[in-house]
């Protein structure tokens, strides 16, 4: 490859309107231009938030759960970048809230197996036919059942918020760069499909606005239904245009590999996946306890070898891949530590992490688990910040 851009002539580079200012800026602060973008390996963020999620699954204590949410929210607020992805955090928050509400509504409307004595209200009970025995609609609503549903829903909401934090901190597009080469193209397809959702929403808004211009009502379900077809047409046209552009930019170029290697790749990948399935089945059933683990491990090994061999077909290189440095270790380790400590705590001091509902007791904040949760704040100090 020859270099045809005039890198030897920096004066050439100051012709454009913006270029002039940029090159002046470069001369005065030479270091700032070649500074790395302050990013952390996206895998570290995912490990961190999965650690938090694991910790959340070990407890129903609302105070510990609230502490987990607060810690993750603080880290997101300090470390997130300005990409569109980072705005998804509030969406996850709303989703978590909705889940909590739904859980409560179900507990109130459908009753709960939790025996309780503090009746808050008695709803009219709907008589159900005999085949629906065991299901109840309405009836007594006890404080115990509501509190139990609240704890349960809060746990689920915390899990969702932890996943949302990973989403906001590490964009899927960046995670894609860490995928093995053989999976890259599937990954691009998934990410492109994800970015279509915001575009679809914009299209719906534009076309509903256009209905108003025709003198038709622009609100209501009917208006939404009538723009459905044009919106889908638009989305299809856009994806075809994008596919053409990607093709013209070299998407899917592949290297020539001998047929033997191709066949070996297929055999390894398929065999590996079969092994994984069989191994998992073996582990989960009682009879397969002996052969389960070895088959699973062999399957994973074969599948990984298949992926590695498959990577030979792709020419792709990575532009500035995120390195896995000490900061990434710290972030991942803080998540792991929270998960490990809370698992340990739930094994040794189950009562503090699972406050009782029958009889009703006020939950107390257990000191050591709470201190462990605070470890999750480490990334706020360790992770590099976006320049504001």
């Amino acid at each position, binding site marked *: 490859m020859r270099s045809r*851009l*005039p890198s030897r002539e920096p004066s050439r580079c100051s012709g454009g309107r913006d270029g002039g200012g940029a090159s002046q800026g470069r001369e005065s602060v030479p270091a700032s231009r070649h500074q790395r973008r302050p990013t952390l390996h996206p895998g570290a963020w995912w490990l961190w938030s999965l650690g938090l999620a694991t910790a959340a699954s070990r407890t129903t204590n609302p105070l510990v759960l609230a502490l987990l949410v607060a810690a993750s929210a603080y880290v997101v607020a300090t470390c997130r970048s300005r990409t569109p992805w980072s705005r998804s955090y509030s969406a996850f928050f709303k989703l978590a809230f909705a889940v909590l509400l739904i859980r409560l509504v179900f507990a109130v409307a459908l009753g709960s197996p939790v025996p309780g004595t503090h009746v808050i209200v008695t709803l009219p009970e709907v008589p159900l036919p005999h085949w629906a025995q065991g299901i109840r609609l309405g009836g007594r609503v006890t404080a115990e059942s509501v509190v139990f549903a609240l704890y349960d829903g809060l746990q689920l909401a915390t899990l969702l918020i932890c996943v949302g934090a990973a989403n906001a901190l590490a*964009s899927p597009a960046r995670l894609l760069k860490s995928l093995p080469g053989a999976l890259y193209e599937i990954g691009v397809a998934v990410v492109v499909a994800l970015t279509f959702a915001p575009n679809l929403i914009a299209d719906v808004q534009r076309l509903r*606005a256009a209905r108003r*211009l025709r003198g038709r009502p622009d609100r209501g379900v009917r208006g939404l239904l009538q723009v459905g077809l044009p919106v889908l047409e638009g989305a299809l046209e856009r994806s075809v245009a*994008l596919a053409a552009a990607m093709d013209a930019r*070299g998407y899917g170029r592949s290297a020539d590999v001998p047929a033997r290697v191709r066949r070996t790749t297929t055999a390894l990948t398929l065999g590996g996946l079969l092994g994984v399935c069989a191994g998992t089945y073996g582990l989960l059933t009682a009879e397969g306890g002996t052969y389960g683990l070895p088959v699973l491990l062999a399957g994973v090994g074969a599948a990984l070898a298949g992926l590695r061999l498959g990577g030979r077909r792709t*020419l792709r*290189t990575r532009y500035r891949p995120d390195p896995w440095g000490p900061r990434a270790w710290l972030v991942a380790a803080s998540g792991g530590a929270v998960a490990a400590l809370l698992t340990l705590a739930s094994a040794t001091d189950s009562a503090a992490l699972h406050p009782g509902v029958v009889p009703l007791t006020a939950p107390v904040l257990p000191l050591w688990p709470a201190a462990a949760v605070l470890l999750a704040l480490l990334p706020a100090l360790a992770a590099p910040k976006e320049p504001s």
Partner: protein
Amino acid sequence: MIRFEDVSVTYEGAAEPTVRGVDFEVPEGELVLLVGPSGVGKSTVLGAVSGLVPHFTGGTLRGRVTVAGRDTRTHKPRELADVVGTVGQDPLAHFVTDTVEDELAYGMESLGLAPDVMRRRVEETLDLLGLADLRDRPIATLSGGQRQRVAIGSVLTPHPRVLVLDEPTSALDPAAAEEVLAVLQRLVHDLGTTVLMAEHRLERVIQYADRVILLPAPGAAPLLGTPAEVMAVSPVYPPVVDLGRLAGWSPLPLTVRDARRRAGELRERLDGRKAPRPAPASAAAPEADVPAPRVPMSRAPVSRISAPRRFRRGRTPDTVPPGVAEVRSLAVRRAGVTALRQVDLGFAPGETVALMGRNGAGKSTLLNTLVGLVEPSAGSVLVGGAVPHRTAPHDLVRHVGLVPQEPADLLYADTVGAECAAADRDARAEPGTCRALVSGLLPGIGDDTHPRDLSEGQRLALALAVVLTARPPLLLLDEPTRGLDYAAKARLVTVLRGLAAEGHAIVLATHDVELAAELAHRVVLLAEGEVIADGPTADIVVSSPSFAPQITKILAPQQWLTTAQVREALA
């Protein structure tokens, strides 16, 4: 570098080839412009260079296309990616990643370049295109001109030897267009890149072209020559060529500078004649008494403190035509961004107003506020006595109509006939009203034509007919000339002049200075959401270097706006 050998392309289901007998060669390092009316197959020719035609679009390609010695018959688009860079009409459809830097690297990653090479080229390209300050920005937050530069940069990093561009400046304001063209010229001059581009706005690009390929009509063989030769016979030509043909200059001047040097004699002939100032139809008064709906800029720059009342000289209040729309100290904030502030405007019947300004200056927001799509955060908007965003849609269409940037957004039905029937129902008009309008605007279009099969210009006319069915006194058009060739533009000008003469007030948001010069009685300049100038077209555009039409620049200091005016004065 690019070689077409007797190429013809027939798409599936088409009876006739879209292009036929295309046979030319583009040498290395030339900037070649592909011109012709709409629908002659310019995009097809461009697509054939990158191999997207026929590998991606389907159809049959006869003959042979070779790029840098590679036959597109045996090479798929992805295998040409290292020699051809293609940027389509809509840069947004082109982006795969979400930040500028990643987008620049994407093509190189696909080609498998070494990481240190990629790093160096990204830095070089950021400098070359003046994008260094934007490197970490999400693409969604960029302006139109910046997006177009990123799109060009993203195909430039793999160092293609050929760059193919489809209408790179159509959606851009004059300053952003110059920015993009300056970059292209630098690529050709410094790096020896071969550029093939199609563009409707010849006045912007013709002076950069080394050679021009003209596709005169659908299916006709192309004509290749120097810009001056081709412009002498071309059915599409910029105003400077029009003036050159009128004055009988040979060889034809292609730039304002060339034309100015020849224009001494013409200026003398025109000296003393007065440029006919376009006046609103409702003002049947003598020319000296042109109603100035606002203080002209030359007298008093419109400032925020200027009274929102309409200022008229030499007119008694009882002859003042009632305004069709009033905007008073309007402010619009959306998502924390101030889109408009302290806007005071009034529109009179029969008046044509051009809204101009940079991409993102607030033109579309103002139009959307007038049709009630956007709610004002402060101030008031009255259209025909109604508050747009509080009026039910079926009542509002009788007061104001908007043809949006994408006219197709207004069209739902499968046939022109069904569209017209629906428009009559929507507007509660006599059945047949819309069809009559369509017949007037688009002679020869059958009832059972699918709107999708119409050309850009025809779709615009259909959308215009649909909007006009309700007879709104105020008609708004957002970027009506995007993608229109000169002939379609001329038809649009005739139609709009007729409507203004019937008493419709027309407001156009446009980047097209030639259109504004031709049509508008009054120009309103917006910058960062504020009205910075408002006055008769001649006063406003003459004083602005980027908004002055070519004829004004050529014949300055005399104040002529269009070739038509000059032709009339000489006759």
